C-alpha cells in the first residue's frame, strides 16, 4: 500500500507553547482518551448532520448517568485485576517505602482513584460521517503544485478535535479535510504516544482472527482504544468483532474489572444479545448484575416488554423468569442456568 507524502505546512502564526501541556496530555491519554468523553460526545452530536428517527445515537444513551452507573456496577472493582501484571518490558527498579498508618490509608485511597480512572469506559458510537465542505474554488491556482497541501491550526488553547484542518487540492479548490486526512494531521501535530500513523497489521481481518483465536482480548481492545477514536469505522469494526467472538466463546470474565466490560455489555443490550451474558452471570451467582442488565435493557429499549417491568419492589427471580418468557432469544439456555442457580441457592440455604 503506497501513500504519497503530502506536504504539510501551516500558515497560522504559531506561538511557542509550554511543553508541559502536551506532556501532561500525553500521559493522561494512557489512562483515558485525549478529551473528556462528555465533551467529545457533545461535539460529535453538534457536528453530526443526519439524525433520522430510526437511527438513535448510542452515544447519547451511553453517556446517561443511570446507564453509566449500571455499567460500573456490572464491571466490578477488583484492584488486583485492574493493576494486574502486564508483559514486563519495564525493568525499572522496584520501589520500597516506609509508611505510617495515615500515609498507608492515603495511598489506598489514591489507588482507588487511579483504578477508577483506569476504568473509564470508551463509548460506543455510530460511525462518524464525513462532511467535506468546499470553502473556495479557485481555478487560477490550479497546478500550483504536484501534490495537495494540508493546513492545521496549531494555536494554543483549542481542543484537538475542534481544530480547523483544510486542504488545498492540486486543481485549486480549498476544502475541509476528509476524516483520514484529519486523523493523520492530528497525529502528526498533536501526537498520542502509542498511536501509529498507519493502521497496525494487527487490526487487519486476517491477523485479528489469529489474535482472537488466542483469546488475547485485552490486547486488541486496549490497543484499539489507543490507536483509534471511538467514532472511527475501524474501531467499531474491531470492537464489534471482538465482542462477537467473546460472545461465542463465553469468555466474559476476561474483561471483568477492565474498562471494556461496560461497552461490551452495552453492545449486547443494544443488539439484544443478552442471553449468554446473563447465563454467565447466573452461573457465577451474580443475580444483581443480571437485574442491572435488565434495567439497562429497559432504558435502551423502552418499547420492549422489559420496559414495562417494575424494578423496585419485585423479586429478582420473578424479573428473570419474566425476561425468559418475554424477550429471551435462547430461552432454553437461560432457563437451564436459572434452574441450576435456584438449586444452588436452595442447597446453600439448607446447609446454612
Amino acid at each position, binding site marked *: 500500500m503506497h501513500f504519497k507524502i503530502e506536504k504539510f505546512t501551516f500558515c497560522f502564526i504559531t506561538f511557542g507553547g509550554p511543553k508541559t501541556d502536551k506532556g501532561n496530555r500525553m500521559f493522561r491519554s494512557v489512562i483515558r482518551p485525549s478529551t473528556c468523553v462528555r465533551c467529545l460526545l457533545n461535539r460529535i452530536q453538534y457536528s453530526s448532520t443526519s439524525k433520522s428517527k430510526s437511527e438513535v445515537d448510542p452515544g447519547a444513551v451511553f453517556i446517561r448517568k443511570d446507564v453509566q452507573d449500571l455499567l460500573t456496577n456490572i464491571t466490578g472493582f477488583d484492584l488486583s485485576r485492574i493493576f*494486574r501484571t*502486564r508483559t514486563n518490558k519495564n*525493568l525499572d527498579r522496584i*520501589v*520500597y*517505602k516506609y*509508611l505510617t498508618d495515615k500515609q498507608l490509608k492515603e495511598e*489506598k485511597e489514591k489507588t482507588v482513584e487511579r483504578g477508577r480512572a483506569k476504568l473509564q469506559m470508551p463509548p460506543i458510537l455510530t460511525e462518524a460521517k464525513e462532511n467535506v465542505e468546499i470553502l473556495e474554488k479557485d481555478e487560477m491556482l490550479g497546478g500550483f503544485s504536484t501534490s495537495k497541501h494540508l493546513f492545521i491550526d496549531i494555536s494554543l488553547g483549542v481542543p484537538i478535535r475542534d481544530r480547523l484542518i483544510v486542504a488545498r487540492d492540486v486543481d485549486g479548490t480549498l476544502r475541509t479535510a476528509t476524516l483520514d486526512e484529519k486523523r493523520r494531521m492530528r497525529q502528526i501535530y498533536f501526537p498520542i504516544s502509542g498511536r*501509529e500513523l498507519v493502521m497496525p*497489521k494487527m487490526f487487519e481481518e486476517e491477523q485479528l482472527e489469529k489474535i482472537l483465536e488466542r483469546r488475547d482480548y485485552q490486547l486488541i481492545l486496549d490497543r484499539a482504544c489507543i490507536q483509534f477514536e471511538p467514532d472511527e469505522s475501524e474501531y467499531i469494526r474491531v470492537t464489534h468483532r471482538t465482542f462477537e467472538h467473546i460472545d461465542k466463546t463465553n469468555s466474559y470474565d476476561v474483561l471483568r474489572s477492565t474498562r471494556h466490560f461496560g461497552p461490551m455489555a452495552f453492545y449486547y443490550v443494544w443488539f439484544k444479545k443478552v442471553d449468554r451474558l446473563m447465563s454467565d452471570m447466573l452461573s457465577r451467582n451474580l443475580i444483581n448484575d443480571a437485574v442491572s442488565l435488565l434495567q439497562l435493557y429497559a432504558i435502551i429499549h423502552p418499547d420492549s416488554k422489559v420496559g414495562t417491568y417494575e424494578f423496585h419492589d419485585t423479586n429478582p427471580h420473578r424479573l428473570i423468569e419474566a425476561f425468559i418468557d418475554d424477550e429471551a432469544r435462547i430461552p432454553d439456555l437461560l432457563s437451564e442456568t436459572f434452574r441450576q442457580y435456584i438449586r444452588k441457592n436452595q442447597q446453600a440455604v439448607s446447609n446454612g
Partner: protein
Amino acid sequence: MLGALFHYVKKCPQVMLMPVRTSIYTNVTAQDLWKTITSVSNAGAKRGRAKRRGATKFKDLNLGQRIGQGKSNIQWPGLNAPVIQGREPVPIVERPPDPMREQRLLEVRNRLDRFRRLSIPPSERGFTGGSPAGKSLGQPESINEMTFENFDSRLIEFKTLQRTIGKIGRKKFTSAFVAVGNGQGLVGYGKALTQDAQQSLQKAKTVAARQLLYIPICDGHTIFHDFYEAYYFTKVRCEKRPPGYGLRCHRIIALLCRLIGIKDMYAKIDGAINPQNVTKAFLRGLLKQKTYQDWANAKQLHLVEYRPEDDYFPRLLASPNNGQPARTSLEIDPDEDLDFERLCFEGRTLDKRQSAEQSEPWYATKDKTRYGWYKYLRRRHWETVQENATIERLARMDENRYDSYYRYPDEYHTDVLKQLKQRVPHVWYPRV
C-alpha cells in the same frame, strides 16, 4: 676430476650423474638430530623444563611410510610391487601422485602427540579455554545414604602452586575451590590441596557437598533486598531486579547464582577480586538477608512495595507485629533516614559522578568525529531511536520490501550480451 666427469656426462645423455651433497641429514642419525631439540640439562630437568615447555618429544617420522613409497608414486618391482605377475615381469611404472599422502602422514604424526587441545562444546566450557575454572564437575558422589540428585558442581578456582619442603626441594601442588548447588537454594563451597589435579577436584567436591547452606529466594528468581557485604578486601554489592532482567554479575557470582537458583540480579564487586573471597562475601550477604517482617519491626512502620510491572500498585509486605502500633509521623524524627535502599546498604550511597564518563569507552576521543566512536554512535542512532518503528515498517512492507530496497529489474534478462554488459546493481541494504 669432477669437471672431466661433467663433460663425459654431457656427451652420454643416458647416464645421469648427481653429485651427492653431504649434509647433516645424510651424515647423522635421526636420534642424534632429535636430541638437539629434546635434550634438557640437569638443572633444567630439576626446574621441570623437560615436562611442559620443552616438551618436544622424539617422533619416529618413519611411521606411516613404507620403503619404496615417496612423493612420486613409482611402482618398484621387488620393493612395493611383485616381480612377476602371472608370466610377465612387472615394469617400473610411475603412477600419478597420491594427493591424500600428506594428510595421512600428518594424521599419523599428530596422533603421536600426547597433549592435544580437544574441542569442547560451548555448554561444557569454562570461563576461558586456558584454565579449567568455571567447568562443571558433574554430580557430587553420594555420602553414606545421601544421594545428590539435581546437584551440580562447578570449579571456581584452580591453582598450581609449589612449596619448598626440606630435603626434597620444591613440590608441586594443585588447589581447587569448588561450589556445589542444586538450583533450589542449597549451596556449598569447599577447598582442597593435593598433588594430583584430578584428586584435588574430587576432594573439593566432597568437601563442598558436606557443607551445604540453605539460602531463601524471593519469588523463586531473586534476592529479597539489596545488600552490601565485604570480606577482607573484596566488597560485593548486590541489587534486586525484576523478573526478566537476568544475571548481570561477575562470572563467579553468576555461577553461584545459577547453582542457588537466582535468575535476576545485579552485582558489582569493588576492591580485590579474589575468587574465594568473592564467594564468601556473596554467600555471607545472602545469609544475612532479613525478612520483610524484620525490616518493618526495625523501623516500626509499614513496609510497602511498588512494582513497575503492576503499574506501581502499593502492596503491603509487612506491618510491625511487636505488639506496638506503627509510629505516627509526629513520632518520627524529621532527620531520620527512611530510604529503604540506603538502609539496605547501611548508609552507603553510590558515587554517581563518574557515570557519564563510564558510558563512553576509553578510546572515544571527542575531536574525532569522522571515524571511531562518534561515527559509530551516529550510525547506530537511527536503529536505537527508531527500533520499534523500523520493525513496524518492515512488517508492513512484507512482500514489497525487497523490491523497493534492492531495485531489481522487473524482467529477467535472457540476453547473454545484456548479462555481460550488466553491472552489479547497487545494493541498498535496509536499515535493520
